[in-house]
Structure formats: C-alpha cells, structure tokens
C-alpha cells in the first residue's frame, strides 16, 4: 500500500506542476496581447478629454507598463494566498465572481455530465450488443451526426423549437426576470436549466457511446461471452456479470476526460441562453479585456480538468487491483 501512496503523491505533484505551467502559459498569452485595456474600456474619446494625471492613474489601475515577470510573480504570489485580484468589469473580487458563476455553472455541467455519461454508456452497450442490426446503425448514425454538429447551433435549434415556437420553456437566463431573489423557486431554476443542460447532454453522448460500442463489440467476441451463452445465461446476467465489469473502466476514464469538452460546450451554450455561468463570464472577460478574471477562470477550469483526470487515475487504481499493484511496483 505504501508504494501506491507514493504513486498517488506523484500524480498530485504532476498535476500541481501542470497547473503552474498553465498559469505561466496563460499569463504569457495575456501579456503579449496588443490590446490596450484603456482603449477598450475607457474609450478613445474619454481618454482624449482626460488630464495626464487621470490617465496615469488609470494606467496604474490596469497595470500598464510594468515588467511581465514582476507582474507574474506578484500575481501568482497573491493567487496562492487566495487573492485572485479584482475583476475590472464586475468590480468585485475575482474569487467572489468565480464563486457565484461557478455555482450556477456547476450544476448545469454536472447534470449534463451525468446524463450524457449514463445515456451514452447505455446506448453504447445496446449498439454493441446489436452490432450490424438496425439499433446499432441508428445509434452509430446518431452519434456520428451529433459529433459533427456544433453545440451552439443545436442550442439555437432547441431554443427555436421549445422556447420560441412551442413556448414551453423560457428563452434564457437562470431565473425569471423581475422576480426577487427570495421569490425564485427551485422549479424556476430547473426550468431555466433544462434547455442548456439538454443541449450539453445531447452533444456529450456521442463520444462515449461510440467508444463503449467498440469495447462492447470486443467483449461480445470474447470466449467468455461465448461460454456464457453456451451455458444459457440470461441477457441480464451476462450484462451484469461479464459486460459491465469489463467496459465500465474505459468508459469511466473517458467520461472523466470529457470534462474539458463539457466545459467548452458550456461556454457556448451559456452564451446563447444568457445563462450567467462561468463560461459566459469567460467570454465577457475575453471581449472586455478583464485580464484578472480571464486568468482566474483559466486556472480554475484547468484545475477542474486536471482534477477530473486525477480522479479517473485514482478510481482506476481503486477498482482494478492489477493497476494498484503495478503502480506500487514502479
């Protein structure tokens, strides 16, 4: 067990190093930007009518003219201590802005993540079981088509059908307009979340369904399945005893690895449904040159992605004893 502990420790250290790398890369990218934050947010006309002192003050506020290394070190130092700076657009602590937005996004992404994972897994099993017959063709065709469909267009179509045409669901936002925060019911929140979560789930299904199908076909052709059939096991017994155990591990890894895609999809989907989540904040920050917020979101989302990968690794170790022993031997 001690060897396993070291292996886990190594994985965690590697993840932290990757996070540092991400922060440096992101910082370099925003530093080389020729976008002048003053021009974007204050405007040429307003700048022209200002005195030198006012401009100097603003330049200090937006951090113009300091060396990048110095800025990185001071920023990173503050970041580690929990101070992510002040969002220039929202005029609040970045950590506060991210906290609020993340809460909105998180359940949206979690719902889509679980739903797409479960549905995709089941579809993959059904397709692989019926390899070559019509359920397989249908599921495969659907998955391939959805993989070619941009999430934002799908969101537009769903919006057209369910919100504009049928009028069943609200067009956007996460709560009704003109209702006090205390008057918002859970049902309101759910209603506003259905369409974005549905869009994300529909697009998320294809990848896992296709991969599970491949694995399933492999399992179906194995000797132990042939033997199970020869013994006359029922379908459910075969699925439970032989199929699930063999294909759930790769599916799990894949699903943990798809967090990055779900996040990317949520950026687009939130933009369309005007859902006030982390993705929308990222777009606002990118368009409005809100560097502290953009950096904060990058680090947080990368941390979530790496956390997902780490979780997959650890789960693998817990579920599959061979991997745990192999890791301990290294």
């Amino acid at each position, binding site marked *: 067990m001690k060897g396993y502990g070291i292996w886990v420790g190594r994985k965690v250290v590697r993840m932290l*190093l*990757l996070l540092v*790398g*991400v922060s440096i*890369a*992101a910082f370099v*990218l*925003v530093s*080389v*930007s*020729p*976008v002048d934050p003053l021009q974007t947010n204050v405007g040429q006309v307003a700048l022209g009518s200002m005195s030198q002192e006012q401009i100097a003050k603003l330049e200090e506020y937006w951090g113009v003219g300091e060396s990048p290394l110095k800025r990185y070190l001071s920023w990173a130092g503050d970041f580690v201590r929990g101070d992510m700076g002040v969002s220039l657009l929202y005029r609040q602590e970045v950590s506060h802005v991210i906290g609020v937005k993340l809460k909105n996004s998180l359940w949206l992404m979690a719902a889509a993540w679980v739903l797409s994972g479960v549905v995709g897994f089941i579809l993959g099993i059904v397709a692989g079981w019926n390899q070559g017959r019509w359920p397989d063709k249908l599921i495969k065709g659907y998955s*391939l*088509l959805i*993989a*070619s*469909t*941009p*999430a*934002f*267009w799908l969101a*537009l*179509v769903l*919006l*057209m059908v369910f919100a*504009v*045409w049928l009028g069943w669901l609200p*067009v956007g936002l996460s709560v009704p307009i003109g209702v006090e925060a205390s008057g918002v019911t859970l049902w309101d929140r759910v209603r506003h979340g259905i369409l974005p979560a549905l869009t994300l789930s529909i697009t998320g299904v294809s990848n896992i369904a296709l991969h599970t199908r491949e694995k399933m076909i492999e399992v179906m052709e194995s000797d132990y399945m042939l033997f199970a059939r020869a013994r006359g096991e029922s379908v459910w017994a075969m699925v439970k005893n032989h199929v699930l155990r063999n294909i759930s591990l790769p599916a799990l890894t894949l699903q943990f690895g798809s967090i*990055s*895609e779900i*996040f*990317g999809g949520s*950026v*687009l989907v939130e*933009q*369309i449904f005007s859902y006030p989540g982390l*993705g929308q904040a*990222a*777009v606002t920050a*990118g*368009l409005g*040159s809100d560097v502290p917020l*953009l950096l904060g*979101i*990058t680090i947080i*989302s*990368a941390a979530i*992605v*790496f956390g997902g*990968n780490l979780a997959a690794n650890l789960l693998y170790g817990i579920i599959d004893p061979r991997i745990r022993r192999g890791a301990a031997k290294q």
Partner: protein
Amino acid sequence: MKKSFLGWNGRKRTFVLFTLALVLLGVVTLWGQLGAEKALETDFSRKDLAPCLAYPFGTDWMGRDMFLRTLTGLSMSIRIGLLAAGVSALVAVVLGTAAATLGRRVDSVITWVIDLVMGIPHILLLILISYACGRGFRGVVTGVALTHWTSLARVMRGEVLQLKEAPYIQMAEKLGTKRLAIIRKHMLPHLFPQFLVGLILMFPHAILHEASITFLGFGLSPEQPAIGVILSESMKYLAMGKWWLALFPGLLLVLTVVLFDVAGESLRRLLDPGSAHV
C-alpha cells in the same frame, strides 16, 4: 452475398464516396469565393423573405441573400480549416516523432506540454490566444492553427514508439541499414497514411472551433459573412420567428463537417490494409 449497387465492390464504392465528398467540398469553397461580392449586396426591396425558389435560404433584414452569405462563410471556414490543419499536422509530426526518438527527457517534456495544452478547455485556450493576438481575423487563425496538434502528436508518438520495436525495423538496424534509410524506407510508408487520415479528420474540429470562436464574437467583424457571425446575428431575430436565418446556415455547416468526416473515414478505409479489400 448481397448484390451491391452497380456491381461495384466495396473498395470502388469507398473511392467514389471519397471523391464525391472532396468534389462537393471543392464546389462549396469555389462557389463561396465567386459569390463573395454578391453576398455583401444589400437590397431592401427583398428583405426578410422566407425561403423560396429564388432565395433557397431566404434573405435577412438587409435583403442579403442568405444562401450566398452562407456559402461565402463556409468557404472561409474551409480555408481557415485547411491552413489550421496543415500547421497543426506539421507541429504534431515534428513533436510526435521528436518525443519518440530523442530520448526520455525530450519525451517527458513534450508529453508534459501536450498534457498542459489539453488541460485548458479548448474554447478557453482559443479565447486566450485570440486575446493575445489582439482579437481580429489573425487571432482566430492563429488560435485554431496552434491548438489542434495535441491528439495527432500523441498518435504519432505512439506509432513511432511501436515501430521502433517492430521486428523488421530492428532487423534492418542489425543489418546495418543507415538511420535515414530506415526512416525513409521503413517508417515513412507506415506513418504517412496515419498522418494523412489524421490531417483530414482534423478539419472538422478546426472548422467547428473556428465557427464557435467567431460565434462568440472574437475575431471577424460583423459585416464579414463568416458562418459564426451569421449564426450569432440570427440569434437576435429568432424571437421574431425568422427561423430560416439560423436553420439553413447551420445545416450546411453540419453537412460540410460530415463531408470532411466521410472523406477522412473513406480514405482510412482505402489505406488501412485491414479494411482495404473489403
């Protein structure tokens, strides 16, 4: 045996499918290029027309022909996709082979960089790069070109690592064949098909990401007929019941992506010895 269409065998059919996909894509690109001038034409006498024979995709609130606008936008997407896939494929091959051949230290550095790039959600990375380039057209092209190499690089690294252990390569080494000759005669013929298929299958991703990032408002200016811009404009008119502004351009985008997928998959089937004779 089922009698197949026209009596063609599978290989012939796959080849025809491949050619057809490429021709269709070529037509879209050329048509969009040639109609670029007309796509910008505004004519208020024909604004807000629903799809009809003269304007199959309808017209928008400025009387622009949506069919031509969509084609022009797609043609630009395809060209950006070509450039992006070219650059990314090159980066992937260089880094992938370097990781596999230049020793453990180089390998771990390159693997680390791949993990790093893959760790930032793709859209977010595109936003960052677009911001670094000062937004605009250049930011979109650079972003899409520089972010698609990771998975192909991984594949290439794995392939080369596997090849290095293959008996026929080891034997060639023992026989004293020169390194370059081994790479040229024994490795490249094996790697090239993989590379080509990876390259073509990169287009769909590149095109979808280009559309996404322009949709979000990074890059191209509003009057340019890019597919992302068209769709993001259409969003404002959805509530007024102008469904055709969003539906048809999106469908054509999906069709383009599917065509690239078909081209890549059929090429893989033709080149891969395991399925070449089916």
